[in-house]
């Protein structure tokens, strides 16, 4: 049946399946959401935190699966605890934040792996969490990603200037009366929630790419923060939509295709926008 799908290339065909409709809807919203928060991730040089958080949440996801606990609550609590731990360790200043993230999140990831090995229906569930799966998308997933997307959009629009100020120039923002630590905490919570609700579709290993690629591409296309905030989600959503369809017709992993479509867009813009675009990229040397 699969080979016939590949050769027929009936573009409308996958939409006959409930799982594909649900999966595409979640991916579309997830792509936009990751694109939106990715703007902050990229401009603040936090791509490593995105990477780390997704690995930490994996531990929580595994633990809640093994203990038959609700995924959102279990992994959510786990993610928040990891975030707090990272902050605690980094505040002692003996080791840097990057090392703290490395320790906490990889330990959490390893624990998740061990739990799934020992108690889970190991192989299948591990693959699903690591690489994402569109097959198991439930209505609750759609609602969760939609709620987080609406919440993040509202928070970012309402706090636009404060987010911009504390991202661009936290020191002066603080002196000017912006509660920078509150804005940072809000971003971390939104980032954790985003990872939480998109992880089951995109997968632990590829989420950080979806947080970085659309925003980095948008950065090359514009010199305006305000424009980045809609171009990046647009690129994220478009990559997700195209990636889902390509994956169906080529019978490959959806999350891999989503990232590859995004990476292709990045490459095109990188070469298409010439020296000017690449110079804009220079602002994030950590990539």
């Amino acid at each position: 049946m699969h080979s016939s799908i590949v050769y027929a290339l009936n573009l409308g065909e996958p939409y006959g399946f409930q799982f594909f409709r649900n999966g595409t809807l979640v991916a579309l919203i997830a792509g936009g959401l990751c694109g939106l928060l990715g703007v902050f991730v990229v401009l603040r040089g936090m791509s490593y935190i995105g990477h780390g958080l997704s690995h930490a949440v994996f531990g929580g996801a595994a633990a809640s699966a093994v203990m038959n606990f609700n995924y959102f609550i279990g992994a959510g609590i786990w993610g928040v605890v990891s975030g707090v731990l990272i902050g605690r360790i980094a505040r002692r200043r003996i080791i840097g934040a990057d090392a703290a993230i490395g320790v906490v999140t990889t330990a959490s990831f390893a624990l998740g792996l061990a739990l799934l090995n020992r108690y889970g229906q190991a192989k299948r569930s591990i693959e699903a969490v690591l690489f994402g799966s569109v097959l198991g998308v439930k209505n609750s997933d759609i609602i969760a990603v939609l709620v987080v997307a609406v919440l993040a959009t509202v928070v970012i629009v309402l706090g636009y200037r404060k987010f911009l100020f504390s991202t661009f120039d936290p020191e002066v923002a603080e002196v000017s009366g912006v509660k920078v630590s509150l804005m940072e905490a809000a971003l971390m919570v939104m980032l954790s929630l985003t990872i939480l609700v998109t992880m089951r579709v995109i997968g632990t290993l590829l989420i950080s790419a979806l947080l970085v690629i659309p925003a980095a591409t948008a950065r090359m296309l514009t010199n305006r923060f305000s424009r980045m905030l809609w171009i990046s989600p647009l690129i994220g959503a478009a990559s997700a939509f195209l990636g889902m369809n390509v994956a169906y017709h080529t019978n490959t992993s959806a999350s891999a295709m989503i990232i590859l479509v995004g990476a292709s867009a990045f490459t095109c813009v990188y070469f298409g926008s010439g020296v000017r675009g690449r110079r804009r990229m220079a602002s994030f040397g950590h990539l």
Partner: protein
Amino acid sequence: MKVAEKDVLVHCHHVTCAYGDVAVVNDVNLTLHRGEFAGIVGPSGSGKTTLLKAVLGSIKPVHGSIDMLKGLRLGYVPQVESVDWNFPVTVLEVIVMTRGEKKWWPRITTAERAAAEGVLEQLGLGGLSGRHIRELSGGQQQRVFVARALFHSPDILVLDEPTSGVDVRTRHEVLHLLADLHDAGMSVLLTTHDLNGLAAHLPRLICLNKEIVADGSPREVLVPDVLEKLYGAPMHVLEHGGMPVVLDHSENPMLGRFGGKAV
């Protein structure tokens, strides 16, 4: 203790700041009045920036207190080197950033735009509001950040090392700009390690090396005694064009190394 006098903007009362157990600023008493133009000078690690940040409120003193005029508005200009010039913002966006108006839609209003254009015009940056911050010259970049601080309608302008990392021409521009603002009634407090290029031009210098070593006009404080206390090394002071010029008195360590010639 509330500051009673209307003209006292900031009063530091036995202020000590520390990182961990190490005191960086020790027992500082300092009063700044409206209309003053003062510079904090001292060697690296002397606590200049720490004292400035204590005045700004971003560092809490471990001892002593800092009293401010009620409702004092501070306009802070950070070091140029601390700014990410590749950040995707235009001049206009940088300037209106400080105004946290209580409105839910983030768009810049016509009134804000007009006010910002006015400040830009005043600083000789007219017509540049749509430019990306990277596309400006060094002097213009520095002025944009002064403009942002002014847009906040401050009582006092606070600048951290306004001439560090800028070329001679920009330094002149900055100095002239600050002098003009001061003439127009603005109070200014800055830190600098540039004794000849900047400090010697200011009306009041506060010499800081953890403690206040001296406080007065350049003629009073840029003297060998004070400078030796401040830097822990002997220094010469000459006079040029009616202004003190400080010379480093230390021996040239390169002398005699490269075939006997100084490099």
